[in-house]
């Protein structure tokens, strides 16, 4: 067999294979962990907002060294480049190789840290133990203070997950498919209930790590940057309502920091059961916008997805605008009187704009020019707001309101 005979490989060859295998994971965040730095020894710092050190031509940032420990895998998930039945080239890093790569990249300011994932080799516990060893070496042998994101394997033992959480800033398990039925079909070795139970266990651990014992001693830290997950969009028949419903359950149930949406994209040596479609990038973009509405704008899934009977989002206009057009009876909103909740629902107003409006209102009534200075996108907001020197008149209820936003062709070609 080719892939066995061709080993061992050089570091560069392994890196090429194991970075290629890791690129379908969208997460690259390095923000929101505990503040720490190397002034008292070691190397590295973290905390505050993350840093994107480079961008590839797919528009995605590189913040972390995102690699697989190995792309050998005993599972057979149809959507995955690394499934056991794929003919892709295989490689495996030793823990020491991952540690050296991480530190040397870090010292040259290429990365914020490591995002380590892996195919399942031998057993879930064996694989998780190797990944935990890498994190332990970095933290304990090398005093590494940078960011570590570990992918956890749901079936691994609690002791290993506990140690992973002590070393890592973030833990994640990918749910991958929005419906249990699809998981059972396309990832027969994975169990949706085991994945959810693993997320629940991480939530419980994090809760416990924030409590103090009766002696006042803080509990050991556990994944201070929280947990996240990823859903593939477009591999199964789930509509946007299914996807957002699942996301909303994950946020409320397990206090996830992020749900990433990844447009299903062609992989080398694809499985015959999945279509090699063009990745639905516009759909992915709309889902992220909807996700933001769920988390920061007080919308619920039903409101966002009820505009269309298909349960899918409008691809031509953003979900907040689509909601506003479908609920025009609630507009126009008086910018100088409306509460925060309603201001957040105005298309063209982001959370920062709303905060500025609320603080500017204390110095007197806002006029059109004030809103422009504050940074509101007034071209979008115009039909939905009133203020002393502006009233949309019949504009709010005009028949072709939606067309006003879709007419410009450059709005359509998002990508």
């Amino acid at each position, binding site marked *: 067999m080719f892939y066995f005979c061709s080993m061992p490989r050089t570091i560069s060859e392994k890196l090429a294979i194991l970075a290629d295998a890791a690129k379908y994971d969208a997460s690259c965040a390095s923000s929101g962990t505990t503040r720490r730095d190397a002034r008292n020894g070691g190397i590295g710092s973290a905390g505050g907002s993350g840093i994107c050190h480079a961008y590839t031509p797919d528009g995605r*940032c*590189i913040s972390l060294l995102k690699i697989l420990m190995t792309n050998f895998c005993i599972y057979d998930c149809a959507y995955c480049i690394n499934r056991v039945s794929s003919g892709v080239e295989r490689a495996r890093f030793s823990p020491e190789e991952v540690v050296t790569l991480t530190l040397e990249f870090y010292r040259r300011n290429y990365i914020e840290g490591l995002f380590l994932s892996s195919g399942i080799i031998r057993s879930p516990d064996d694989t998780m133990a190797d990944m935990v060893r890498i994190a332990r070496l970095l933290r304990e042998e090398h005093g590494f203070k940078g960011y570590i994101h570990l992918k956890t394997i749901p079936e691994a033992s609690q002791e290993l997950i506990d140690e992973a959480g002590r070393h890592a800033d973030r833990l994640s398990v990918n749910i991958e498919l929005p419906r249990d039925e699809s998981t059972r079909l396309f990832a027969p070795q994975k169990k949706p209930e085991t994945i959810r139970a693993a997320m629940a266990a991480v939530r419980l651990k994090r809760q416990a790590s924030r409590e103090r014992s009766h002696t006042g001693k803080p509990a050991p830290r556990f994944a201070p940057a929280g947990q996240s997950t990823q859903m593939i969009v477009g591999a199964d028949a789930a509509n946007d309502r299914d996807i957002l419903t699942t996301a909303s359950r994950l946020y409320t*149930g397990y206090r996830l920091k992020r749900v990433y949406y990844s447009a299903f994209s062609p992989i080398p040596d694809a499985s015959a059961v999945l279509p090699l479609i063009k990745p639905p990038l516009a759909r992915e973009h709309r889902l992220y916008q909807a996700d933001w509405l769920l988390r920061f704008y007080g919308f619920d899934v039903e409101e966002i997805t009820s505009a269309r009977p298909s349960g899918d989002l409008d691809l031509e206009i953003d979900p907040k605008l689509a909601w506003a057009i479908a609920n025009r009876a609630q507009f126009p909103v008086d910018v100088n009187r409306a509460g925060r909740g309603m201001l957040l629902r105005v298309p063209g107003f982001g959370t920062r704009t709303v905060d500025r409006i609320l603080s500017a209102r204390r110095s007197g009534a806002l006029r059109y020019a004030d809103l422009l200075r504050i940074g509101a996108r007034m071209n979008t907001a115009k039909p939905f707001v009133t203020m002393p020197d502006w009233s949309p008149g019949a504009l709010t209820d005009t028949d072709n309101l939606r067309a006003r936003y879709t007419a410009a062709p450059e709005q359509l070609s998002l990508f």
Partner: protein
Amino acid sequence: MYRVALPQLGFFETWRDSARRLLSHEVAPDQIVWDRGGVADLFASTPLPEAEGPAKVTATKELIRMAKSALCHTGPEAPALLYRALHRHQRDQRALANPADPLTRDLARLQKAVGRDIHKTHAFVRFRELPDEVPDEGAGDPPRRRFGAWFEPDHLILEAATPFFARRFADMDWTIATPQGVARFERGVVSFHPPAPRPDLPDDASEALWGTYFANIFNPARLHLRAMRSEMPLKYWKNLPETRLIPGMLEDAQARVDAMRAAMPTEPPARARRILDRLGQTDAPQPDVPADMDAAKLAAAACRRCNLCEAATQTVWGEGDTSAGLMIVGEQPGDTEDIAGRPFVGPAWQVLSALMAETGIGPVWKTNAVKHFKFQPRGKRRLHQSPDRSEIDHCRWWLDLERRFVKPQMTLALGATAAYALTGNPAPLGARRGKVETGRDGGPVLVTWHPSYLLRAKGPDAMRLRAQLRDDLATSVRMAVLPQ
């Protein structure tokens, strides 16, 4: 007319001292010309007053923070705008609090540009390793690795951007050279120096590995050049080694995607069958009806009799003593139980266990009529929803199994859902509470309140309900040990 020349390095201190001096003499903003880069004095100007004037000068922390940042902006207007802001602040403390004010907006714009430039510096500085220096004679410390970088920021941010590198790269020595000046970090000490010509940095083997990573983490199927250019503007490319690979990556992208689409699925490698067969053996088929409690628990974990499993985390199976005389049946797991995977650990159970401590209770099997949590996400919470008839009926299969294995002398039904599951009678609870009914399987069932009902009740009502629940608990404990 006063004229103040600001140096390339240390300009904040010069600005602060001059501004304080001028403002203490109540000099109006239009009386001052601020010079950047120490340009020779072209116009006649009044020398700065020698001593502080009579006026008291105050500034908020926020204003100083703003000045430190906005002054890094290369725009010539920055020092004057800041002086205007400080001048206004002396008269009106709230002048700068309005985000819609033109001066505040101008300063915010400067600050934003500087903040972005600092952020991009932190992101895009690329170090190369320098050869070892000959260690000093008698120096006891181990040799430190040395790195160097050349970078061209848009603004005068060298001093503002350097502390980040000092905190992060504390165990190595490094130099960051920019057109504005040079920052050096040696043995834990930062120093700034006047600009020097661009250094000639030696090749670094790790840079090639970085290029390999950059080229392979890229997904050719989802080109999005606009996003890349807006976050990594072209002006930075000349100092970013990886960007030299981009043209080649773009050239190949379409061909790689086409090749992926055109390729026919290959035959799975021979080892795939072997591995999957071995994995399959651990999931051996289970008998239709579990033989004991452990087998039932295992089978229930994968239950899909109704749709609740899709949203809930896990099946929450009963717990306790399988030879107990008393079985307590609740409605369904709540938020806490669903996360923990164990029954009766949430707030309602705390009410019940307090009562149980009062009455004293022997061995018991605790379970729920429905084994999955039914809820509706609302904001950050999961709101409990009562299970419907069909969900209760589907789940009864499991409850009946539990009853068959435990064979309780007495069953306490907490609330209407449990009462319906056990007796088949959907009638309201009010008239039935405290009475022993006959279960579907013939065993006695004492119907009582669900403890969460007590949590919601207030005043004398709550006291009465609590007393009733305690009585029912005591009755059920007594009856559980009596032979029927």
